[in-house]
């Protein structure tokens, strides 16, 4: 393996890893704040992709331009999901919690299939298309822009969590819910906010990859499992951990696919989950 190819592989891994990080930060935020794993998180990403698609198909708005809209829309979806379903199962037995978000996953997939058909769709000729060559290394402009966007969004989220009052309250709730409640932070508001932001992050990831990834009702299933691996590796509830772990998972996926064979890349990433569970169950930056 020459150095050029290695660099090429690492760059591809980094680019996709940043997207995984963006999907996973939302998942880990929701988990941290309320101890619920959102099985429907991949479906938020799917909705983000369809939002981009229809903005493009109906109004000729480019996915990149439509990003703020996508984010707002998905934020609303997240809050609505919280208010209608999740709020009612906060104190329910764990089984009900699993079934509720699992049911949401099926429901959103079903709705997408019903309204938008199971066909694979693509957004042709987006503003960002074509390749960039940096010396010997080549990569798609859409992938590059998407990764850049992912860094921007994750960075903005980090700033929000650490530099604003509201964000600090949210982060505090994620770190120690009971202590946060004692400090007078309104749990309900934080929970709704976490779902809104979590869904918006997934939706933004969907909007960012819509320029180069096929769009179909089940597209979320590809991402939810990987996002779960990222969350476990990063440490449940840790946004910074998820960001680092996303990059690591992206690199391992592309490198593993390159060394073992692309058909095994998902299996390799999922095996990583089992390894982390056996060796370091709390992940990179998780609380014990």
């Amino acid at each position, binding site marked *: 393996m020459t150095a050029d190819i290695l660099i090429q592989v690492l760059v591809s891994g980094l680019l996709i890893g940043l997207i995984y990080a963006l999907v996973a930060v939302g998942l880990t935020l929701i988990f941290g704040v309320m101890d619920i794993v959102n099985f429907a998180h991949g479906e938020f990403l799917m909705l983000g992709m369809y939002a981009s698609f229809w903005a493009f198909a109906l109004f000729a708005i480019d996915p990149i331009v439509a990003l703020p809209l996508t984010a707002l829309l998905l934020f609303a979806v997240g809050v609505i999901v919280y208010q209608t379903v999740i709020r*009612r199962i906060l104190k329910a037995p764990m*089984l009900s919690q*699993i*079934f509720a978000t699992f*049911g949401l996953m099926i429901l959103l997939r079903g*709705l997408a299939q019903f309204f938008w058909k199971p066909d694979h769709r693509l957004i042709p000729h987006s503003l960002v298309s074509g390749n960039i060559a940096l010396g010997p290394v080549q990569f798609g402009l859409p992938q590059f822009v998407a990764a850049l966007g992912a860094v921007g969004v994750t960075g903005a989220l980090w700033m929000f969590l650490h530099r604003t009052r509201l964000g600090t309250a949210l982060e505090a709730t994620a770190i120690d819910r009971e202590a946060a409640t004692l400090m007078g932070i309104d749990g309900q508001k934080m929970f709704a906010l976490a779902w809104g932001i979590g869904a918006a992050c997934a939706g933004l990831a969907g909007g960012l990859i819509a320029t180069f990834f096929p769009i179909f009702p089940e597209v979320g299933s590809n991402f939810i499992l990987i996002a779960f691996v990222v969350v476990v590796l990063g440490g449940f509830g840790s946004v910074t951990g998820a960001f680092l772990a996303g990059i690591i998972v992206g690199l391992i996926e592309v490198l593993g696919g390159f060394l073992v064979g692309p058909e095994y890349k998902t*299996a390799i990433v999922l095996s990583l*989950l089992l390894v982390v569970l056996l060796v370091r169950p709390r992940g990179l930056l998780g609380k014990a």
Partner: protein
Amino acid sequence: MTTGTNSSRKAMGTAALLALAAVLPLAITEPSQQNFLILMGAQMGVAWNIVGGYAGQVSLGHAVFYGIGAYTSTMLLTVLGLTPWIGALAGGLLASVFALAMGWPCFRLKGHYFAMATIAVAEIMQILVTNSDFLEGAVGLYLPMDRSGWGWLIFLSKLPYYYVILGLLVLTVLVSWAIERSHIGYYFRAIKDEPEAARALGVSLTRYKLIALSVSAFLTALGGSFYAQKEMFIDPGSVFAGTISIKIALIAILGGVGRLTGPVLGAVILITIEEYSRTLFGSTGSGTDMIIYAAMIILVAVFSPSGVLGLLGDLHRHLGRHLPGAKPAEAKTSAKEIRP
């Protein structure tokens, strides 16, 4: 109401359902695809319920056991010429061993995370099988067409298959019933309710969770072998797919987890919805069936964690309260609200 009458009522209900299923083909003589789907679904659901319902360890990767069953009996038949009577048994045992191996790391995880890990394991397995030359990869395996009869469990008509799956369902229900009535069933429910308290009473969590998963895996694998025998063709997509895992869990959840007859009811509901939405809205993949049963699951999760059976029970109590001569509802001081 004592537990004794409760469980004998359950047993009677199940017996009645099974008797109905046994008489049905005599009336129809030609079992429909829907009859098969319901029985197969019920069998998988009852098997899942042992670990997901009684023991409360939600597996969303049960297709891995289904696939192991289907592939083991089929490979033993095509390669070694072994009868599927033995092949299915071997598949069941292999699935149990696999369950022990996967349960050991995964049971360190609680609840949601265990469920996610099972999805991952099933997904890994599907990828490995799809890329295995030995198992004919994505191409799939055909069962030999040159033999038939009870010795080979291959039949030219549908009716014998109907009795085989009925028998398998009865076996699965009986195993489940025996577990429910034995100390193991009590331990499962204790682990599901309060794992720490169960440990304090001498219950080994790992041991009993592994028992639950391996028994469930064994029975699920038998279902997989039956699928192969009936369809005469298997590929990773038809027996290892994530959608199968989801369906197995859905059936039990819809009907009511942790109850003997819940999954049977769940299968009837789920398959009927599926078939009606198919005939009503035409081609498959319209998503209407998914929408309907997802909506049902969410309703069940939010309003009645014990499934449609629980919902019926609540309704029954609710109506009973307003009927003349009904006993007034016992005044209850629930401790739940008081708990910190």
